[in-house]
């Protein structure tokens, strides 16, 4: 199996942990893993990404345009920004909730999540939009968007991993007191079918 996955969002949304969980799950299956991500100044509210490459014969941790099997968008505008990386027929899983940049609040030129989502609908065949507001309310925490999106990616079938793989990664990588909450978030997408 070879998978190229792009995770993208805004600094502070939890993309790094999601990337770590996928990596741990893939490694547990014996798959070689390479990844690269934004660290440093951009983490303070800037656009951030992780590139994840699972499988053999990979030289570079970076993904090229048109090469991603899956884009996991934590924010609709950021998913659009990364769209050139999607391969033809690739899957996009995206949160419907926009994070407004401070610049937009200042100028009054707030951008609309709906514009981004409709662009995605027009250009992506395999698109799954997650109702983040409702999901977070139902799970009961504002901090688990990453696990909700991972669960949705599982449902989409594009992740190449099973729920069992990710459950084990959660148990291994996340402190015990957060296990129940994170597992609940991971399972949220299932009951949406």
């Amino acid at each position, binding site marked *: 199996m070879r998978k190229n996955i792009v995770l993208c969002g805004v600094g502070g949304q939890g993309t790094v942990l999601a990337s770590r969980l996928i*990596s741990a799950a893939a490694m547990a299956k014996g798959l070689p893993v390479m990844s690269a991500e934004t660290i*440093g100044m951009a983490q*303070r509210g800037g656009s951030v990404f992780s590139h994840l490459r699972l499988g053999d014969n990979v030289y570079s*941790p970076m*993904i090229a345009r048109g090469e991603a099997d899956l884009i996991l968008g934590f924010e609709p*505008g950021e998913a659009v920004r990364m769209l050139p990386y999607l391969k033809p027929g690739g899957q996009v899983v995206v949160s419907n909730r926009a994070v407004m940049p401070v610049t937009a609040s200042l100028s009054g030129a707030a951008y609309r999540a709906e514009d981004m989502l409709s662009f995605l609908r027009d250009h992506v065949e395999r698109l799954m939009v997650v109702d983040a507001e409702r999901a977070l309310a139902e799970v009961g925490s504002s901090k688990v968007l990453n696990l909700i999106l991972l669960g949705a990616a599982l449902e989409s079938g594009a992740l190449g991993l099973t729920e069992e793989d990710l459950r084990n990664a959660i148990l291994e990588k996340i402190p015990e007191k957060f296990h129940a909450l994170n597992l609940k978030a991971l399972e949220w997408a299932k009951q949406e079918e």
Partner: protein
Amino acid sequence: MHREFLMGNEAIALGALAAGVNLVCGYPGTPSTEVLETVAKRRSEGVYVEWSVNEKTAMEMAGGAAYAGARALVTMKQMGLNVAADPLMCLSYIGVKGGLVVLVADDPGPISSQTEQDSRTFAAFSKAPLFDPSSAQEAYDMIQAAFDFSEAHQTPVFLRPTTRVSHGYADIRVKDPEEYTVNTPEGFVKDSSRWVIFPRLSYQNHIKIEKRNALLQDTLSDCPFNQILPGPGRKGVAASGISYTYVMEARRQLGDMPLFKVGVPFPFPEKLAKDFLSGLDEVLCVEELDPVLERSLTYVCGKYGLKTKIYGKLTGHTPAAGENTRDGVKAALSAFLGIPQAQDTAPALPPLPVRPPVLCAGCPHRASFYAVKQAMKGQKTIFCGDIGCYTLGNAQPLDMVDTCLCMGAGLGIAQAVNHLDKDTRCFAFVGDSTFFASAIPGVVNAVYNQAEFTLIVLDNSTTAMTGHQPHPGTGKTMMGEIVEKVSIEGVLRGIGVQTVETVDPLNHALSVETVKRVSAQPGVKAVIFKSPCVVLAKPQGRATVDQAKCVGCKKCIREIGCPALSFADGKAVIDPGQCVGCSLCGQLCPAGAILGR
């Protein structure tokens, strides 16, 4: 041996431990920081590790350890090498006994740096060999080889990863602790003919170094990190660092052209380069930052009368600045090889939100900047910024950073401006870690030379931008000790600054009043804004907007630019996921509509 999923920087740290490193020191700087942090986490009992106060001190520590026969690693980012240049240059002339590896992480882009300087060029300038890894695995292997090389040739040796190598993750093969080399330092042995640098000794050593480096060119031609990968055709490619992996990925689609992988670019492996060039008509160099391979190969062509044409940055075939990408490298290779590229079918994107990095919601720096801004309203001012999270104070609407040069530079700039223009109220802002690293000489200079300016110390009790490292003011060391804190206020008073006041920036009215009063004093004076970094501190609560009271004036949004604040349906809205209850917005709301912490 076992396999482990490691960041490049973690791999480097484990490689150093495997090589039997005895002492590790450095100063935090993206993208180098995790090397030392990993050593601290994974070290065995006998390994000494510290965050030094700055890179110069760290380099001197590492030099001292190497004098005593220890294996020493010193870590920094490329800007840090400028700070450490003085001891490094001298160490290069004096030489070492134990292995000394200088880990300096370069930052093409730049992604989080002031310059795009290339440490390969610095290595040539300092005459010390440099290893340039292309992956986490190679970085792990190289640092072990670098220690041996340093000891064998009695010289400091550079290991120079770039951001994508330092911060890329891979599962790699690493040694088990039982397989680690054990190095027991002999201790310092007196020999003033060796360890005391004098002009005569420098002259003699200079001759030796040039002779050694000429020989090393041959040695390195047989080094496995430098390699020719064969391929058909008369057009070849030379590549180094992460760019080598981009070329390898492109070869899948473009075919196996002859490839020269340069893992040790200084001293340049001339013999191997000559072998590579003979039989080739043209060579494209794929590298980041300076055209080091391009210049070296051009030199080899001239020296040996080869007709091969060398292309790269100098000839406009690859970009002069910025980070390489897989797509960019593939496009340059396609053009060079004359292979038509498939049309990019990606749709044109709609206008996307611009997201410059901002101070976190509730960041005390925001409150500090805002207090100074309010206190100095209507006056002729200069606000000299510095390097750290607080550089982000330049963003609208705060707009409180008029200059930013390098660590500690704001103090010098503020003093000079006041000497030339007495009517300008001059301020220098500096963080707590930066204060210890590079601001103290600036304060001494100001007091001695009768400068007139206000020093603002933004003390959030951590080195925040690089990921919260301890420093002398935190009272914690990387060896896990709790020690006496070095007091910023005490240091300032000791230097002779008469007025030093400490205030909580989240108390807005008191902060404004303090800045007004202190800055009106003559000479050098200081305000220390003390409030912990919000990433580390427990949230104090959460503010909410009373929608009935909010008059929609947008003052909160217009004045402080907090990312938790936005505007919807004519009213201010606070994002509960981001707000930490700093209460600054509540203190400035004219309608009293923002409630609670």
